[in-house]
């Protein structure tokens, strides 16, 4: 989780990603951020997030994103 929070903070240093739960709905993360995030996750976790999983529910919070990474890693 720490690694993920580090990646997220790299995108928007002024956002507290550990508590925010509407990252996409509130427009904090836009499509460019999301794709940058996917490539960073690929580099750090060796997990590829497929396009069909790029939905607001999976990117609205660090917890949701971590759950997605774990699910994909499990699969």
């Amino acid at each position, binding site marked *: 989780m720490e690694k993920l929070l580090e990646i997220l903070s790299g995108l928007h240093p002024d956002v507290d990603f550990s508590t925010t739960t509407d990252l996409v709905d509130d427009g904090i993360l836009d*499509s460019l951020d999301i794709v940058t995030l996917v490539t960073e996750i690929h580099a750090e976790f060796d997990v*590829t997030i497929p396009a069909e999983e790029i939905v607001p529910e999976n990117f609205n919070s660090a917890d949701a994103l971590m759950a997605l990474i774990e699910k994909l890693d499990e699969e």
Partner: protein
Amino acid sequence: MLFTSYGFIAFLAVLFLAYYLVLRKWQWGLLLAASYFFYAFAGLDCLIFIFLTTASAYVIARLMDRGHRKEAEFLDQHRAEMEKEERKKYKATQKKKRFRILLLGLVLLFGVLAVLKYTGFALLNLNALLGAFGAEKAFSVPDLLLPMGISFYIFQTTGYLIDVYRAKTVAEKNPARLALFVSFFPQLVQGPISRHSDLAAQLYAPHDFDRRGFTSGIQRILWGYFKKLVIADRILVAMRVLVESAESYRGVYVLLLILLYSAQIYADFTGGMDITIGIAESLGIRLKENFKHPFSSKSTKEYWNRWHITMGSWFTDYVFYPLSVCRPMMKLSTFSRRVLGAKIGKRIPVYLATVVTWFLTGLWHGAGWNFIVWGLLNCLVILVSQELEPLYAKFRKSAPRLTSSWGYGKFMAVRTFLLMGLIRSLDCYRDVGLTFRQWGSMLTVWNVGDFSRGVMTLGLDLADWIILLVGCLVMAVVASITAKTDLRERLYDKPILSWVIFGTLLIAILLFGAYGVGYDASQFIYNQF
């Protein structure tokens, strides 16, 4: 049949009446008949294309759906006896099979669009290239039929196929129902590009007459006609002069063209959307909003989240994301990080996908270099803004009072409005070289002194300019009110005020609509894309 024709008004009146009189279970069938009747006016050839699109999408979606069901059944039956790796392999094989079916569907549908829309453009460029190498012969450029709204319904249908592939929606079992989803007439001309999961169930559900919804829909239709007929079509007259005699209208007139075209396309496109969404609302169907006060945007990125939203989200979900996260792009990401370092390397795949997406967005708008350059310039502005973001953040931090002030916000909105208007003028001149020369003339030709005389040579008299100014002012005031509150909802409980406002609107359309001598109620701008 134009939305702005008397025939269409009569068609709507008959449809509304029949829709609420027939048995509720026949309503969707009636909508399908009405949609095909409406589309038949565009030509019988067009009907064939939409029918074939529907038929192919039906078969492709059903095949993919069957694949999903088979996979689920197989896994249910054999889950216990299968190892994790085995399951993974089986799923991957099934996915690959479905992907091949999807690919076939996409090639078929986009192939038709590509041949009809881009053959002429491709051959013209090929001829120019061959000519540059001294070839004497050239390919003859065919004048192919471009069915009305094909860019919109092909996108909606391919979106449906991709959603079925991704199991985000279930394939329609009844081909007639799918035919209605593809051809629903209010959105056939210029969108919005709907998702199957948002629209389909609403189309097939029975709808009781709801006075509130019906009234609200009719009011929105009226507002759309006001924007289209009183503002957009009046500006069209001046735009024709400014574009057709571009060499005579340089300098300050280019700025005038930018402002006029911004008002025209906004009134035309959002007016068309008001009519479309209003018709659907009167039928008890809610379509997605396609605009959210785009001219209040403080950045290009924000502008594109507010302008033609359904097209933007189509490109994001079905082009940008899949392209950015596909395997070759992930390999490129790893490679570029290794070679260029994490800071620069991570940008390569993202920026590459952005450029491709904007190139395609430009191409979708039309087969011409002006559209491609338009797309790429939008992309350039977005990427430069992205790169400058740390600088902006520093500025915001160092001057928090200034950057959070009302004036600074307005300055950012005006800046974005002018920048988008400037790039959008590529739509008008339809020639990249001419557009750039016209832009340059704003700095080199100083003809402000001639403006008051010249502006009266654009085909509009003083009364027209006054109507335009008042019309734009009304449009701006309504936009600023509706940004904060649902105006029609608030007016519903004030019937007298409501009648006065919408009665005045109707009278304004009848009196000031640009369909008198010398004018033609014209087709919507986005219908040509």
